[in-house]
């Protein structure tokens, strides 16, 4: 049997300390130990993007990441993206464009796009960069068209409003 370890980490700004099996995936830790079920099991082999979270601000596939890797680092999940009831511009745009159908891939798409925007800083993000980033997520419902439109819209609104800052809280 795998040995246990005490994981100390920060999830959505909250310090967490838990005894977990050393082989626990970050996804199972989030879903089962913390009850944060927004991140999804899509394929469990790191190919679909439905489990995407941020680890120290970078997108990570939590299904193929050991929870232990989050030791003393910052994890952000879909539950930590909105500022209370104020949606992040990416969430708001996906909502407005009906960029989610079944919604199962949507948390992962939000995490991919928010990481891209946070990471880009002042560098403008063009269509190629968006398509490149979204290549990490698969969606079976939408044909991606409205997701892409929403992403472009989020970039525009992020430029003109303080919405981008809202996403950094949480």
């Amino acid at each position, binding site marked *: 049997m795998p040995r246990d370890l005490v994981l100390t980490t920060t999830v959505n700004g909250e310090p967490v300390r838990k005894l977990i099996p050393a082989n626990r995936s970050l996804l199972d830790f989030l879903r089962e130990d913390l009850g944060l079920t927004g991140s999804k099991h*899509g394929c469990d082999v790191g190919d679909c993007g*439905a489990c995407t979270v941020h680890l120290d601000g970078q997108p990570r596939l939590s299904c193929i990441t050991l929870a232990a890797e989050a030791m003393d680092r910052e994890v952000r999940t879909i539950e930590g993206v909105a500022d209370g009831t104020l949606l992040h511009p990416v969430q708001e745009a*996906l909502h407005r464009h009906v960029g*989610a*159908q*079944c*919604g199962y891939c949507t948390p992962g798409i939000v995490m991919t796009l928010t990481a891209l925007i946070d990471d880009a800083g002042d560098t403008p993000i063009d269509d190629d960069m968006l398509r490149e980033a979204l290549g990490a997520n*698969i969606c079976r419902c939408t*044909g991606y068209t409205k997701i892409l439109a929403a992403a472009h819209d989020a970039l525009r609104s992020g430029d003109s409003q303080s919405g981008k800052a809202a996403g950094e809280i949480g």
Partner: protein
Amino acid sequence: MTAPPARSPLHAPAPHDSAVGHVTGAAIYTDDLCPPGTLHAAIVRSPAPTGRIRSIDTRRARQSPGVCAVLTADDIPGDPCIGPVVHDEPVLARDRVWFTGQSVAMVLAETREQARQAATLVRVELDDPGPAPILDVDGAIAADSFHTDPHRIQRGDVDRALASLPAAGGVVVSGEVRTGGQDHFYLETHCALALPEEGGTIRVISSTQHPTEVQRMAARVLGVGQHRIICEVPRMGGGFGGKESQATAPACLAALGAAHTGRPVKVWLSRHEDMASTGGRHPFLGRYRAGFDSRGRFVAFDVELFSDGGWTADLSGPVMDRALFHLDNAYFIEHARFVGRVCRTNKASSTAFRGFGGPQGIAVCEDAIRRGARALGLRPEDVRRASYYDGEATPPRDRTPYGQQVPHPRIIAMHDRLVRTSDLAARRQQIAAFNAAHRWLRRGIGLQPLKFGISFTHAILNQAGAFVVVYSDGTVQLNHGGTEMGQGLHTKMVAVCADVLGVLPGQVRIMRTSTDKVPNTSPTAASSGSDLNGQAVREAALRIRERMATVAADRLGCDRSELTWQDGMVRGPDGQSMRFADLAHACWLERVSLSATGYYATPGIAYDAAAGQGTPFFYFAYGVAVVEVEVHALTGETRLRRVDILHDVGDSLNPAIDLGQVHGGFIQGVGWLTTEEVLHDERGAARNTGPSTYKIPAIGDVPLDFRVELLDNATQPGVIGGSKAVGEPPFMLAIGVIDALEDAISSFGPGPVALSLPATPEAVLRAIHRAARRPEGRDPQGR
């Protein structure tokens, strides 16, 4: 679209009902629920495609840490078999196994890991494998292994027509088309959670398109009345037909586990298990002879279809029926003989998948059109234009081979409009110039029309119910029999209900689909969810409004007929008004019932399968696509450059949702036809069971330029809000990709154009070599 009333929620492009939940991760799916004490299931599966079960040794598994029970077929108290049409599917294998991956036993343990660990310790001993496994249509035909007798649809005299056409300047072509399987790849795999409740009741929370089927089958398996089972569906993470019949087995296993242990039991399939043990789209073989007259009209079509049904009958019979009903696509074919039969093979059972046989039938029809056009020296779209149903022709060309009238087909006007708006003629010239200037890159353009019959072809299923509750504060709970899998049904139903009651959509709360609220429902399938449930919701809401109207008329001092209901207000003719909330309270005070059921059954549908004649559809939906592709002659890679679609959804109930259905359906069809290749090994086991080896379209596969328009002024009489079904039809427009690919491939040389499906890069490369008349492995220019 006709101008809707200014503030009606109907026809408004409202966001999805679950949209905020979707983008914040708060939307609950079945696997997100896990009450304390839940046992997790792991399924032990057959290691071989055939064989008699000698023993199932569960001893070591029972002693494994955390294991609570290991169940086999012997533990089933009721009927051991389920099945939507034929009860031929053992929930857990008895005596024999029929495919590699079949469920044999179920381990229940405290954690998922413990259950899986223990499942590896169950030993299934097989002997007497019997005859070699049958793994495809050809093997089944050779072994005379079928689920069904042939279904025939005939009209005219095909043999005579085909014999006489060549002498009259026409052509006769023959062909063989093989369409591939397809995995649904809903992002949420199969999942069910069964909760034991008091009085021997079990509540099954299931990711199913057919809660009533889960309820009915779980009751049979447990040997109890249906009143002791409740099936509830929060929402699905995609369905596409994959959860119409095949969510039932996991749900029955969960119910069995809960009944056996008295604890909550969750059955969840990993992606690998889901792809290996549940079936997808039926692979089809179509053989045909097709005749065209000198003007390019499609006049005779003799087709034999075989589908690979897998190990159980499942929905294969109705899928074949729909394939036969769509062999005509949008064309009047005077002489027709369509025969179809479902093969039985030792593989996971094929099942419903968006289009339900329609795509396979239309793919065969369009192959004949392309082949006929080449033989005549015409463009395929000219043959199509000459062959459409046309009620205004003399004599009218408006009856399908199965005898249904096609009134006022919109397809001709839609074809002409899209040819114009997509600039087809000019782009053909540009493409010819491009191809003349490029050696390795070639472009092609094609057109794809579509007529798709709407209704369950099994007439009984065309019924629906709803249950609407108004509370004394004027808020509303809406229950209906349909399930939400991402298609936006709940959003549309809220709009229908809010429109009738004249309240704001925010006042209407849609409830989880549940068999204890609306019973005896049909699956949410056949694109019919909004047509059927919408009418039932409307009727329920109207019944309540009628009762409330009496009170309102009294309070406002006017006649009931003078009332208007809008924006949460009820108004009389002279400016007097009251809040809907106050009216609801007044109704409660006056002891007026504020809840009602609604029910709807589609009128006029009947089909006689023995005669191959009838009216299986309430109406037809139409669409046209123009597709431009680019192919690379060194790699076989293809790229969608531009896609134009004009689609007929009637007066859209929600244009934002319907556009999403067109985008998503089309791209899913592109996947079926180009990137998604289902592979099996010699044991019939699925070989590509994850997204790294089974390629569904990613964002890089969508058209660079994608223009979708919904047909305007398209009211469909007799359907809720004048709308039309939209779920399945756009899928089939993707067949235009094949039209465009063959156009591009033909530019490489005068050889035969023979593109196998799916048109993966390998298949495209082979086709290019054949067209260039070069041996494979050399470049098309012969260098």
